[in-house]
């Protein structure tokens, strides 16, 4: 594990200065000062987040830290109360899931939204079926599905005509991810993709995450499992009680500092990037 040297302080000083502009320009997605309130409850407090293109960014935090609210804000489920969102350097407004999808943001929720009674091909193309002479073009859809799964190295399914209900948890997760990236997505948000999976299936999903990143697709990964995070992520962002307390390259963190940040919002090893946590908390 890399010893955190002088880098983190530099990173933290960046957030206040003129460097912000350039990080927005180089990031795929940037949030600035995003706040989300549900009545009197502030679920997100002035969150700044940068997601680098083609990289895996892990979003970690304890239950109730605001991870889910944050991704749902990005995905357009509920728009932020205040704050800005930038996509490829341009400010954007995401009001509903359709807006997010149009930008190229795909979200894979924990429930995966698959139809167990349909086969893999049918699930992959659900809502965007191909037609030929007015009827469903099963052959092209099947060929494309096979091609995409092969590209993503999802090789454990026996047949793409298998019912999704008969797949294992890891395979189902893979299908949901494959469906998400099918429509030219730039960013795939995954909510706890390994939560209910065994060891080998977790490895399968994590390798899929790496494959996405190698194909230039950014991944924002919510996870409780720090082992997964440290094995797959390039960047980490830690949330604590609605505040994004620290973020940076994964090399600047280790399990101890991450756990400290998750549980207390601060770490002796990694200076908290947000000075305002203390000011406004």
């Amino acid at each position: 594990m890399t010893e955190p040297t002088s880098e983190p302080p530099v990173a933290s000083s960046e957030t206040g200065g003129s460097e912000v502009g350039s990080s927005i320009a180089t990031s795929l997605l940037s949030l600035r000062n995003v706040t989300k309130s549900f009545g009197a409850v502030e679920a997100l407090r002035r969150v700044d987040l940068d997601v680098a293109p083609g990289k895996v960014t892990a979003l970690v935090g304890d239950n109730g830290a605001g991870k889910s609210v944050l991704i749902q804000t990005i995905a357009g489920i509920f728009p932020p109360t205040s704050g800005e969102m930038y996509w490829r350097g341009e400010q954007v407004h995401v009001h509903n899931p359709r807006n997010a999808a149009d930008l190229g943001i795909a979200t894979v929720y924990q429930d995966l939204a698959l139809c167990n009674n349909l086969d893999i091909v049918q699930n992959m193309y659900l809502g965007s079926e191909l037609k030929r002479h007015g009827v469903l073009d099963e052959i092209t859809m099947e060929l494309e599905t096979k091609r995409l799964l092969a590209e993503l190295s999802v090789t454990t399914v026996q047949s793409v005509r298998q019912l999704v209900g008969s797949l294992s948890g890891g395979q189902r997760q893979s299908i949901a991810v494959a469906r998400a990236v099918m429509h030219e997505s730039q960013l795939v948000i995954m909510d706890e993709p390994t939560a209910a999976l065994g060891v080998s299936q977790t490895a399968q999903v994590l390798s899929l995450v790496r494959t996405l990143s190698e194909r230039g697709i950014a991944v924002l990964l919510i996870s409780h499992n720090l082992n997964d995070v440290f094995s797959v992520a390039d960047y980490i962002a830690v949330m604590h009680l609605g505040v994004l307390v620290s973020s940076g390259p994964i090399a600047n963190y280790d399990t101890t500092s991450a756990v400290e940040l998750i549980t207390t919002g601060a770490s002796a090893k990694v200076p908290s990037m947000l000075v305002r946590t203390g000011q406004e908390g």
Partner: protein
Amino acid sequence: MTDVNEKVEPAATHVDGPTPVATGGLGGQIRVQLKRLRSGDTGLVPITVGLLVLIVYFQVRNSVFLSASNLTNLSIQATIYILLGMAEIWLLLLGEIDLSVGYVAALGGVIGTILTDYQFHWAWYIALPLAVLVTTLIGVLNGILVIRLRLPSFIVTLAGFLIWQGAVIYLVDHQGTGGAVPVQEKVLYDLVGGNLTPVATWLFVLLCVAAVAYFMVRSTQRRRANGLVTVPFFLTLVKIVLLVVVGILLIVVFNANRSTFVTLRGMPFAVPIDLALLAAGTFVLAKTRTGRYIYAIGGNSEAVRRAGVSVNRYRFIAFVATGFTAGIAGLLYSSRLGGISDSIDPTLTLYSIAAAVIGGTSLFGGRGKMVHAVIGGLIIAVIYNGMALLSMSPPTVYIVTGIVLLAAVTIDSVARRGGEQLR
């Protein structure tokens, strides 16, 4: 789960690499079928075997059973169950139910019958479509109540069960024809009572067999040409041979003279009507987005909504299709009985659900095919017909039908649980 060990190896042959054709041969085919069976897709084989067992049993007990005239009669008896079962399947696929379908059909039958009788004397080509239009509008109404007002379809159609029953009795009793309206229009009578000529029967059956065989071969050819896994050629061949055999048997049965004093030959019109609705329903369910979404909604409507599909639109289409099919069923029902009385069998709706479920359609939504109504309807008709030949009492018939239904639902439920455990 031994997932990794067990699945990585076949993946190499199926997903990547030069795509093989007809992998695994017969053994692979059997394994795929077993897997489908365990995952809840029971297929048609068990139920067809059940049908054959019933047929053999009744034939052994009474040799009249397999006579040409009885089999023709059977096909007419089965028609009402088949058509109502098809009407019901549209909603069952969504996980909804229609308890009123029997009386909606009867209402359509009454309207068609009254409007074409000596009193009103409307032209059949206006009256009969109008009857179907009315039942279709009832489907629209049910759809609005269930989708817009979010009422449970069970309750909406339970109310419909009472309302349309009342409407049918009211209409029948106000014709002054003594508690029944007789069919007095030849076209309406001929829907069930009329027959194709023997030559037309030949042509029709051959055309059907040729069409099915053509689509079967073309589909496997196209898959093979694109390097996709298909059923082995000999399996297609076996199916086609079976199809031809069944077709020839049908021709022999329907074209035999079944009357002693006059010549009565040919396929009853009811059969092509059944087949036309079967073909249309199967086409929509298997080949169009509408069908795809109806299955998907029955499986996980939230997933369909998130895929950006208007769930309500497709639910609505299914309600309309149910009303439409019920109307056609009603006309054939009236045709077969020679009219509609004010004492219609109240179990008609239940038999429509039974036909669908016995055939293999799930009550839980998302699983089923139009052909299930055909097989289920035939089974119910075989039980009725066979037990009548054996002079068994109606109570026995009820009990036996009930047991068959229970067996079918048990298979459905167990298969479904098997599918979930596999996940």
